[in-house]
């Protein structure tokens, strides 16, 4: 687990970039999963997992005041857990695809925990703001830079903490797949492919709520035509 400190650092950056700053969206699943894929030596798999998570949470808007599932940390932690498990338990092929099932389920827990921690983080910021305002009112000139930067540090620590706690747990969870009978592998790996139905529904619905029905139908027809072309040309 020599890569573990790098993951903790990355986790902190992902959490900070999500809402704290600089919000250049390096924390989005398509970016972090691709990055993790390269880090662990599974570039193709990293991209495919990134596509799945990104489609699922395409419509999630990381607005400052919104309380939302921490989709970025969820994607980061579950993907890192899957890759770490594949290293530790020698998972490959169908076993790795099968391990994507517990990884996805784990992402829901991580996302929900991230949500609760985000609320707590805002609470801490609120208390810090109260302290600043009372010092200003009492005629003192506090360092606003120091106070503000401690907000970024809080977000970073939240991500680092989640990474440090959840990745070992997720790794063990994904690794448990290796103790399942081989007959389960095929079914579970097929299920990890079947879930594309749910993630694409989430992405489509985002544009459906914008009332873009005609464009969606037009795009779907184009997609079917493309598939037909591929199947015909072999």
């Amino acid at each position, binding site marked *: 687990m020599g890569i573990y400190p790098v993951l903790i650092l990355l986790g902190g950056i992902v959490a900070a970039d999500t809402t704290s700053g600089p919000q250049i969206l390096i924390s989005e699943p398509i970016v972090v999963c691709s990055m993790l894929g390269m880090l662990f030596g599974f570039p193709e798999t990293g991209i495919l997992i990134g596509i799945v998570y990104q489609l699922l949470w395409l419509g999630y808007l990381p607005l400052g005041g919104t309380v939302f599932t921490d989709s970025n940390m969820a994607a980061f932690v579950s993907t890192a857990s899957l890759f770490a498990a594949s290293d530790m338990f020698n998972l490959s092929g169908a076993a790795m695809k099968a391990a994507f099932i517990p990884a996805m389920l784990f992402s829901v827990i991580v996302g929900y925990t991230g949500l609760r921690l985000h609320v707590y983080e805002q609470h801490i910021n609120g208390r810090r703001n109260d302290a600043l305002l009372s010092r200003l009112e009492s005629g003192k000139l506090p360092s606003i830079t120091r106070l503000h930067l401690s907000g970024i540090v809080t977000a970073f620590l939240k991500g680092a903490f989640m990474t440090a706690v959840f990745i070992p747990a997720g790794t063990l969870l994904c690794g448990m797949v290796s103790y399942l009978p081989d007959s389960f592998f095929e079914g579970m790996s097929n299920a990890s492919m079947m879930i594309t139905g*749910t993630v694409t529904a989430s992405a489509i619905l985002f544009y459906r709520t914008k009332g873009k029905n005609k464009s969606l139908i037009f795009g779907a027809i184009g997609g079917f035509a493309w598939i037909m072309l591929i199947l015909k040309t072999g």
Partner: protein
Amino acid sequence: MDNAHTENRLGTKTLLSIFFRSFFLQSSFSTRYRQNVGFAFCIEPVAKKLWTDADSRRKFLVRHTDYFNGNPFMATLILGAVANMEERLRYGSDLTERDIQRFKKMAGPATGSVGDRFFWSNLRPFGLILGLISAFFFGIWGAAVFLAAFNIPMVVMKWNWLMEGYRLGPNVVGRIKSPRLALAERIMEDGGSILIAFFSVMVIFDFTGADNSLHWILAGALGLFLFSFVMLRKHLPIHKLFPAAIVISVMLCLVMSWIIS
């Protein structure tokens, strides 16, 4: 207070400092005060430039630590305008501290509404779709395409808004609702919906291996698509639907595997 000013007393260094700090506007976000400290942090270089005595700086911070809520990218428009107003306040004009506070209270939510719709609801998903399609065909480059598609316009617009805000002062409110932004939104909505439908079909067919004999996986994915679509329309949250869909797909696949074997 309606003339666009041409003098740049603050200097490019101060404006650059505001610009770089604006990337961290939300770092102290709290439910009660929103981005109040963030705003004060971003505008602080103006105080350092205009005021030398501690009491004036303290008063400056007091008027910029009250409630502020705006879009983190479009807030540079307000930051530029407030820098202009603070400069005019310092060098004696008819502006008052209350004018500045009133302007912030009025313009902040306006940028929140317009900026959130443009950046979060349109540019981000559109950039993501471009990135996803690129990732599908060209692998790792997809992430770079997304980052470029979102960040290049975002950085350029942030800087332009800061300069425009500084040039126009409070008159900049007329620029918040721009017809060019509305046109860009419409293009991204139409383009995004066409591309996402196209890409979704490709993903379902490709991931489920439509070119091999396992057509039941494809059928299962399409069934799951319909089920999820209906459930999401009934406002079932994703964090409940997703695990349910995973369990359903696993059970379905295990049963089918046993039947086939």
